[in-house]
């Protein structure tokens, strides 16, 4: 299973037939393993890595540190759930250290992010403080550098 997951993480476009060939398994076996992983929420979706800066779309991403007061019984989970259900929230992590939740938010403009923080995030019961950092440039995501050097070097002819 690990081998299949690693391959899908490397490129989720790999077809079950390709994965079967690469791992020496049966195609139907690969299909079943993937299906089981999807059912068990080990695989939670498939997506593309897009550098929106290279498009004409306006997009802003912010990284927000959130401090919260943990609640009896639920700890951090209930507040986290209230936050991550917003469409704007791209990712949400519980952190150790100086703050509790790391929230990544994407929106069309600075104003939209500001609006989200002041109108939606900050007023949530239990949120003590927020610190918003705007992301200026994305260099790498999911192990993939976003700008690859286009230089083609001269190559040795024959080895």
């Amino acid at each position, binding site marked *: 299973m690990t081998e299949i997951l690693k391959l899908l993480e490397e490129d989720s476009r790999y077809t079950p037939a390709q994965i079967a060939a690469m*791992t020496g398994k049966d195609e139907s076996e690969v299909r079943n393993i993937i299906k089981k992983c999807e059912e068990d929420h080990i695989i939670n979706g498939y997506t593309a890595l897009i550098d929106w800066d290279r498009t004409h779309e306006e997009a802003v991403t912010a990284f927000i540190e959130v401090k919260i007061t943990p609640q009896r019984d639920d700890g951090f989970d209930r507040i986290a759930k209230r936050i991550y259900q917003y469409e704007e929230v791209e990712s949400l992590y519980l952190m150790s250290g100086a703050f509790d939740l790391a929230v990544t938010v994407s929106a069309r403009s600075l104003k939209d992010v500001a609006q989200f923080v002041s109108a939606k995030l900050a007023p949530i019961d239990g949120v003590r403080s927020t610190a918003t950092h705007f992301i200026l440039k994305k260099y790498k995501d999911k192990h993939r550098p976003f700008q690859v050097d286009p230089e083609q070097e001269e190559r040795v*002819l*024959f*080895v």
Partner: protein
Amino acid sequence: MIEYKNIMSKNVQSLAPSGIRKFFDVLDTMQDAISLGIGEPDFVTPWHIREAGIYSLEQGHTKYTSNAGMTKLREEISKYLDRRFSLKYDPKGQIFVTVGGSEAIDLCVRAMVETGDEVIIPIPSFVCYGPITTMSNGVPVFIETKAENEFRLTAKELEAAITPKTKLVILPFPNNPTGAVMRMEDWKEIAQVLRGTDIMLLSDEIYAELTYGGHHVSPANIPELYERTLLVNGFSKAYAMTGWRLGYVCGPDEILKQMLKIHQYGIMSAPTMSQYAAIDALKDGDVDIERMKESYDHRRKLILKGLRDMGLECFEPRGAFYIFPSIKSTGLTSDEFCTRFLQEERVAVIPGTAFGENGEGFIRISYASSVENIETALERMRNFIGRLK
């Protein structure tokens, strides 16, 4: 006017130039062409290794090292060979650092071979062994390994090739271009054949780390063969460090002492920056080796299945990153196949004949390329072969 060809070394002039150039010249003029011809990892050297090289420059380590290479590097090589292959070599006299495995091969042959000595070379194999032997006035004696033996060198074949003039046997395993590997039992049989002779072995193990579905076995792992083995390895293939030009040779002190003289006069010392990077590679690079090997292994299986599915007879390669299918069923020669495949489908692969006469009927495909390239190349080969029928 000086007629240069009358005064230049006859030996050098007798060497055949690489017949591969024409493929790459054509390739350069093509749009969306795919090359599965180059024998080089498609990975960039892992960053921590590159960083160690850069740091050495920042520290101003820009001078020669000792001729044999840095003590620290030789110690790390010694530990590495023990850790990964259970091979024992003393860093103080049994290991020295060269400019790539290629220099190490050249030195071994030059230190051992005198005029008329025979050097046994199994083919198909990497192109350098024959010419280097010729340059030492030695006589290359080729053994044609067979597909039905999975391109291993058999004890019987070796025995038949040995004469009183045999000085050295080249052992290019894991093999470029076939992907053949030798097993413990193969070496034991070969040890029987060599018992009582003074024949030396040059084991080119540059692809040792890229052995699939089993562990690499060196002839030096066989106690009887240890004393007659000159082991050559390097950083190019295991750590994707081809451009750093760093290799090493291990063997008996007495022989290495003589080889070191040639190295000392011709080279001085291997690049210092590369040596620093290599120390880091040996200390922290085991995980990189595993990661890259796993990736090659996936592609190896993918291409093997693809080629077999289109009806090509194909021995399963157990090492390196090449696959060597038979194209005899197409009725074309290796050269015709590769020339037409490139012209008609824009994919470069290498005719088996580039690696020895018995490579006729085979092609070498490198799978050190992206899955996407491999899939496209397979698709184009299906079209090409389909049209031939």
